[in-house]
């Protein structure tokens, strides 16, 4: 018996059954997916609001993961966004700068909002781009002048 095996396991999710909270959440996801298809209504499930037993979160993630899309954010610490193997079901995990998980959500949507470019950021980007272009134009001008002078 290895040392690790000697440590008592409180993980009631040992075995392959979809027990306890796992199955109800999967049902909830299925209903939400139905609704998304029919009406376009999106849904977000906060995994931290559910009294999960030890190991259940891992079981849910194992059951869902992973599909075709995997995105990484770098916004106030890293975030990981997976499309699960069920299209339209996304797993969003936010970390803080110390890499602790600060939020974990299952989103039933075409694309999680956080991936879309935000209006405010885009308007700042336009300004920034304009500034950079005009700066470039300005810095180009004197140089050509100088060239012609010599």
């Amino acid at each position: 018996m290895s040392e690790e095996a000697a440590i008592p396991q409180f993980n009631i999710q040992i075995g392959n059954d979809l027990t306890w909270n796992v199955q109800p959440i999967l049902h909830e996801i299925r209903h939400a997916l139905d609704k998304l298809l029919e009406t376009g209504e999106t849904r977000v499930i906060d995994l931290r609001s559910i009294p999960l037993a030890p190991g259940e979160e891992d079981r849910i993630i194992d059951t869902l993961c992973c599909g075709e899309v995997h995105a990484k954010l770098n916004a106030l610490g890293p975030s990981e966004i997976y499309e699960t193997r069920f299209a339209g079901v996304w797993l969003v995990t936010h970390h803080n700068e110390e890499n602790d998980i600060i939020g974990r959500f299952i989103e039933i949507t075409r694309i999680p909002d956080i991936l879309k470019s935000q209006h405010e950021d885009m308007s700042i980007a336009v300004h920034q781009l304009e500034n950079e272009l005009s700066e470039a134009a300005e810095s180009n001008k004197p140089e050509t002048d100088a060239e012609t002078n010599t």
Partner: protein
Amino acid sequence: MTKDLSRKDRTLGETLRSQGVSRRSFLKFCAATASMMALPPSMIPTIANALEKARRPSVIWLSFQECTGCTESLTRAHTASVESLIFDSISLDYHHTLQAAAGHAAEAAREAAMEENHGKYLVVVDGSIPNGNNGYSTIAGISNYDMLIETAKGAAAIVTVGTCAAFGGIPHAKPNPTGAVSVSDIIKDKPIINVPGCPPIPVVITGVLTHFLTFGTIPDLDNLGRPKTFFGQSIHDRCYRRPFYDKGLFAETFDDEGARQGWCLYKLGCKGPTTYNACATTKWNGGVSFPIEAGHPCIGCSEPNFWDGGGFYKAISIPTENITKTTMYAAAAGVAAGVAIGATGRMKKSAAGKAHQKVTIDDLEK
């Protein structure tokens, strides 16, 4: 864009933008905040809207008869970067343990904050207040009682952090030598939000402060003044071990098969059924675990008088006194009394029988 505003007058949105925080980051922050405040994810846009406009309130933190465990808990709030953003946007103007200033300078900071933000500042209290002899606990020569009364006067609201401030806690436990009382025993004319726990869950503390910061209102409170979002359901009702309770599977001791299987801890004295807190969902140490998950029954630390609740390891349905003895003595006394009454009855009967005189014809003819 915010050059003309002093730092204190900025909204949270302005503060974040000036720090180069993108809208996307802000949305992530709002999602984590919603999760922290135990609000549904559908509230995220509302929170974003409110946080955008939120202004940093002045916070005065008073520590009375306490062990600093609550502050220790708070500083271990796991969503560090989120909290730091929030605490960047509140002005913690007075906190013994955390502030750099000491002595007169510290007290001056408190007085200045009270004057500048009269009617708007938030008072956070941890620790109970000795109300027998005020001399039991003083700060800078001011008794806790006087400091609370003085500071509460201009407060918008009071948040009590920890069971001591909320309900009296351990100092209030029998025989309560200092005559310790809770904040709500003294302050009657201000909204009080109780955040009990020994200590409270760090994210619950920050969640309540964030609620005030975000919406500028008092959250929905239960009959003990606790925010319903965190204290709305009992540990028992949200416990992942509840199915074992319903099936009748219990750990009988701390090292039996039931304990190893992670069965219900009711028989080991778990106070989950009478305790309201967020431990079962929010959990501790960044969502890692909570006492019951670690195999120890809930001691009910977020309830009033939890220290005098008849023993941490005695199941709720068990009487706190030895009623076996009482019942036996009472039964013996009952038997004695019953026999005595019966015997008296018999004696009366036989006496009546003896005293009975037969009536003869002669008697009737008299």
